[in-house]
């Protein structure tokens, strides 16, 4: 008798199976899918790589060829969305794409060119990052922004020595 009541319940509920492969499925609001990196906006500040928990975003500084390579490995990503939170220019958007199965390896990379120090001629930072920082500073702080940290340290010490008057 009880089994007959199950049949009644099943008839009341009806078909529950989703028709997913044959029709589109709507993901809920706030779903975090594939992050997309906008190479036009990215300034190469590496904030995303600093917060990335599984090291899915990795920074490789190639000082010989003169570019900074920011790699995003899909296989490592846990879709936490912290990179999009910390990006200062909002170059990273979290999309709702969830059909991410792949074979082999999927690596999305952005390569940004370095600029050279005007004094010693070494690569030291990316021009976009420098421009972004410079736009937020006043003129006083902009002094010596186009030389590398080593050269700046040297020139600071030189000026200190001359100001103190030890070596006159």
């Amino acid at each position, binding site marked *: 008798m009880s089994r007959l009541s199950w049949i009644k319940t099943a008839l009341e509920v009806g078909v529950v199976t989703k028709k997913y492969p044959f029709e589109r499925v709507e993901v809920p609001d706030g779903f975090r899918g594939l992050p997309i990196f906008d190479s036009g906006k990215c300034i190469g500040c590496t904030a995303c790589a600093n917060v990335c928990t599984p090291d*899915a975003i990795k920074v490789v500084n190639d000082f010989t060829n003169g570019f900074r390579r920011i790699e995003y490995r899909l*296989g490592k990503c846990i*879709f936490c969305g912290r990179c999009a939170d910390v990006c200062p220019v909002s170059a990273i958007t979290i999309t709702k*794409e969830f059909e*991410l*199965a792949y*074979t082999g390896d*999927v690596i999305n990379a952005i390569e940004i060119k370095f600029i050279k120090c005007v004094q010693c001629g070494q690569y030291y930072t990316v021009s976009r990052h420098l421009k972004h920082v410079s736009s937020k500073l006043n003129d006083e702080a902009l002094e010596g922004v186009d030389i590398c940290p080593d050269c700046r340290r040297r020139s600071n010490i030189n000026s200190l020595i001359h100001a103190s008057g030890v070596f006159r």
Partner: protein
Amino acid sequence: MNIYKKSIWVFHLNTGGCNSCDIEILDVLTPYHDVERFGIKLVASPRHADALLLTGPVTKEILPKVIDALLAVPEPKLVIAIGSCTTGGGIWYDTYSTIGGLNELYKVLKEEYGVPEPSTVKIPGCPPKPESIIYGIALALGVVQQKVTTTTARVE
């Protein structure tokens, strides 16, 4: 990619994961998503299976058992790696107790057992949606095309 003519039977193997990917796999098998309508069936032994569903970051403790199960699957075999832990190590990529995902497992297989890489489909996500798993199996069967691709953008 399609190496099977008939329905695939899968063996589910947790290699030290947190269980959320396993719950999603069970969700795929329930009447709500119901992959048995496509002929995909869960079996109790790797010897009966065509494909291995791997979840978890492959801890060192379970590595010999995983290799045993992988070698027990008859050819042609397929590995479906589910979840970010398996596809690349996830947040456990450099911990002392895991080997850090599928690529390291394949290295061990090749160096110590001389077994070539079986054909693999990786489904990232933490955990992946049930629809995502269905899409991954469809990719393994050659029904759909891969959506994500490797890109390199070079800017000034």
